[in-house]
C-alpha cells in the first residue's frame, strides 16, 4: 500500500498508537483461545487520556472504518506469508519456518503490518464514501482488528467546514495612495542619492597644519579605563588608528567636544559617560576615562554628483538616467508597500466579515510553522540548542495562536475565493518560484524540485502561489483612493 495519496506514513503514526494498545490484547488471545468472542468494550476506555491534537468540535467528522472478516484474514495471511519467507529462527533453515511458529514469534509485528496495510486503504475508501476531505491526521478509536473478525473502528478527524463566501466582492478597504511626486517623495529620492554618494566617499589626509573642525575625520589611538568599578580593574579599552567623525551622528558628543580644536600629535584626557541605551551593553551607562592621541586629520570627499559618478555606479548614461532609475525604484517600493498594506487591510476585513469554525489542527500546524521560523531566526542569532530547549513552549505557542488563527482563516478564504475566481497557477509560474528558491539555496533547480516534490512542499508552494495571486486579483479590484 505504499504511495497512497493519503500520506500513509503519517496515518500510520496515528494508527500505530492505537495499534500498540491493542497488541497487548492480541497477545492475551494467543495465550488462550478459549474465550474468543468476549466483548471488547473494556479495552477501549479513552476517556482518561487524550489522543493526538485538540480538535475544534465544530469541524470534527467521523467515519466508520470497516472490512469484512475475510478481508482481514486475507491481509493477515498475506503478511504472514511475507514473514515466512524471510524469518530467521534458530532451529530452522530460512524459509522453512512453519507458519504457526512465525505467527507466534512475530505476532506483534504482523499485527502492526496488517494495520499498516489495511487501514490507510480502508480509511481512504471510507472518506470517499462519506465525501469528506480530512485536513488533520485521523485519530482512530474503538478499533477491533483480529483474525477471523471483521475490522471495525472509527476515525475522527477535522474537515474544513462548509462556509459561504457570498459577498466577498463587496469587501473593500481604502487603497492607500502611492505618491510619486511632492515634497516627501523628492526628499526620499534625494536621500537615496546622498546615500549613494556617501557609500562612494573617499577619505583623504589633510596636508595643511590646522586645528580640527566639525566635519573632519580624525585618526586617533585611545586607551580607556572603566570608572567606578569595584574590585579588579578591568583591562583598559584600547584601539589604534580609529577614525572618528567630528560632530558626526555616530560619534558621542563628548569625543567631539574634546577633539575639536586640537591638532595632530596632541594628547588629551577625556571622561566619557556612555548613554544607558548604548549599543554595546558592556559600556552602556558606564563612565570611561580615555587617553587620546590625535594621529592625523582626514577629510571625507564626497564624489560630485555628475554624469561621471553615474557611469561609475553602473550602466547609466548620465546622471539623469541614474536619477530616473532611483525614481523608478522608489516608486516601485512605495507601491509594494502600499499593496502590502492594502492586502493586509483586505485580509483583516475579510476575516472580519466571514465567520466559520476553523479546524484546530490547521491552526496548530501554522503555529508550528511560525515557531520554527522564529527558532531558526534565533539560531541564526547564535542561540544554542540548549538554550532553546529552556524556552517555555506552551507560552510561546499560546502567543502565536491568534496570528496563526487569522492566517489560517485568510488562507481558507483565499482558497475558496480562488475557486470562485478561477485563479490557477501555471507550471511556468511554479517554475519561476522554483528558480528563485534554487537561487536562494544555491542548488540546481532540479535538485530543489526533487527535494520539494519528495516532501510534498511543491503542492504547498503551488497553493501558496495561488493564494498570493488571488490576493493580487482582489487588490487590483479595489477602487482607487
Amino acid at each position, binding site marked *: 500500500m505504499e504511495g497512497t495519496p493519503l500520506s500513509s506514513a503519517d496515518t500510520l503514526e496515528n494508527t500505530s498508537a492505537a495499534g500498540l494498545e491493542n497488541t497487548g490484547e492480541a497477545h492475551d488471545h494467543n495465550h488462550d483461545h478459549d474465550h474468543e468472542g468476549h466483548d471488547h468494550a473494556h479495552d477501549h476506555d479513552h476517556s482518561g487520556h487524550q489522543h493526538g491534537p485538540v480538535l475544534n468540535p465544530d469541524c470534527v467528522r467521523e467515519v466508520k472504518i470497516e472490512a469484512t472478516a475475510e478481508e482481514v484474514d486475507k491481509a493477515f495471511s498475506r503478511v504472514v506469508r511475507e514473514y515466512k519467507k524471510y524469518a530467521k529462527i534458530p*532451529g*530452522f*533453515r530460512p524459509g*522453512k519456518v*512453519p507458519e*504457526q*511458529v512465525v505467527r*507466534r514469534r512475530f505476532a506483534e509485528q504482523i499485527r502492526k503490518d496488517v494495520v499498516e496495510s489495511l487501514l490507510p486503504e480502508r480509511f481512504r475508501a471510507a472518506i470517499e464514501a462519506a465525501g469528506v476531505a480530512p485536513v488533520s491526521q485521523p485519530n482512530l478509536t474503538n478499533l477491533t482488528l483480529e483474525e477471523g473478525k471483521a475490522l471495525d473502528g472509527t476515525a475522527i478527524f477535522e474537515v474544513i467546514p462548509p462556509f459561504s463566501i457570498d459577498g466577498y466582492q463587496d469587501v473593500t478597504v481604502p487603497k492607500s495612495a502611492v505618491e510619486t511626486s511632492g515634497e516627501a517623495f523628492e526628499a526620499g529620492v534625494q536621500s537615496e542619492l546622498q546615500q549613494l554618494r556617501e557609500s562612494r566617499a573617499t577619505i583623504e589626509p589633510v596636508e595643511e597644519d590646522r586645528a580640527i573642525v566639525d566635519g573632519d575625520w580624525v585618526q586617533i589611538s585611545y586607551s580607556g579605563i572603566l570608572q567606578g568599578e569595584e574590585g579588579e580593574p578591568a583591562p583598559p579599552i584600547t584601539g589604534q588608528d580609529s577614525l572618528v567623525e567630528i560632530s558626526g551622528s555616530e560619534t558621542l558628543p563628548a569625543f567631539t567636544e574634546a577633539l575639536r580644536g586640537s591638532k595632530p600629535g596632541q594628547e588629551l584626557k577625556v571622561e566619557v559617560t556612555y548613554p544607558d541605551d548604548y549599543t554595546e551593553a558592556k559600556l552602556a551607562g558606564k563612565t570611561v576615562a580615555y587617553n587620546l592621541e590625535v594621529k592625523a586629520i582626514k577629510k571625507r570627499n564626497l564624489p560630485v554628483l555628475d554624469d561621471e559618478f553615474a557611469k561609475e555606479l553602473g550602466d547609466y548614461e548620465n546622471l539623469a538616467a541614474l536619477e530616473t532609475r532611483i525614481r523608478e525604484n522608489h516608486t516601485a517600493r512605495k507601491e509594494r508597500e502600499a499593496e502590502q498594506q492594502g492586502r493586509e487591510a483586505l485580509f483583516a476585513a475579510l476575516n472580519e466579515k466571514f465567520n466559520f469554525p476553523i479546524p484546530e489542527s490547521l491552526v496548530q500546524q501554522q503555529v508550528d510553522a511560525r515557531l520554527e521560523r522564529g527558532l531558526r531566526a534565533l539560531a541564526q542569532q547564535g542561540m544554542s540548542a540548549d538554550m532553546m530547549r529552556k524556552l517555555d513552549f506552551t507560552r510561546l505557542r499560546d502567543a502565536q495562536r491568534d496570528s496563526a488563527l487569522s492566517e489560517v482563516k485568510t488562507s481558507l478564504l483565499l482558497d475558496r475565493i480562488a475557486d470562485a475566481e478561477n485563479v490557477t497557477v501555471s507550471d511556468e509560474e511554479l517554475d519561476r518560484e522554483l528558480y528563485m528558491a534554487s537561487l536562494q539555496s544555491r542548488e540546481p533547480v532540479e535538485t530543489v524540485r526533487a527535494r520539494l516534490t519528495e516532501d510534498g512542499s511543491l503542492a504547498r508552494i503551488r497553493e501558496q502561489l495561488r493564494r498570493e495571486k488571488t490576493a493580487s486579483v482582489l487588490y487590483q479590484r479595489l477602487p482607487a483612493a
Partner: protein
Amino acid sequence: MPTLYEVIRRPLITEKGLAVKETEGTLVFDVAPNASKTEVKQAVEALFKVKVAAVRTANVLGKERRRGKFAGFRPDWKKAYVRLKDGEKMPEYVANY
C-alpha cells in the same frame, strides 16, 4: 528426585523436532544430562497428561568455542525423543513457547 522442570528443560522447536512430531508422534526435549529414560517418561506423562510409549535419548557433546587463544566447550546436554502411545493427543507447546 529432581522436579519435573529440572528433568525437562525445554521442548526443542526445530525443523526436525516438529517433523517427527507429525510423522512419528514423537516429542523432542532438552533434558537434564543425568536424567534417565524413566525419569523423562514420568516427567512427560505428568506434565502433558499423556501416555508415553518409548523414550530414546542422546548425549549431545558441547561444541568447541574459542575466544582468541582460549578454547572452551559449550555444556554437554541430553536430547530425548519421547514417542507417545498411538492415539494420544499431541500437546501444542509451539504456540505457548
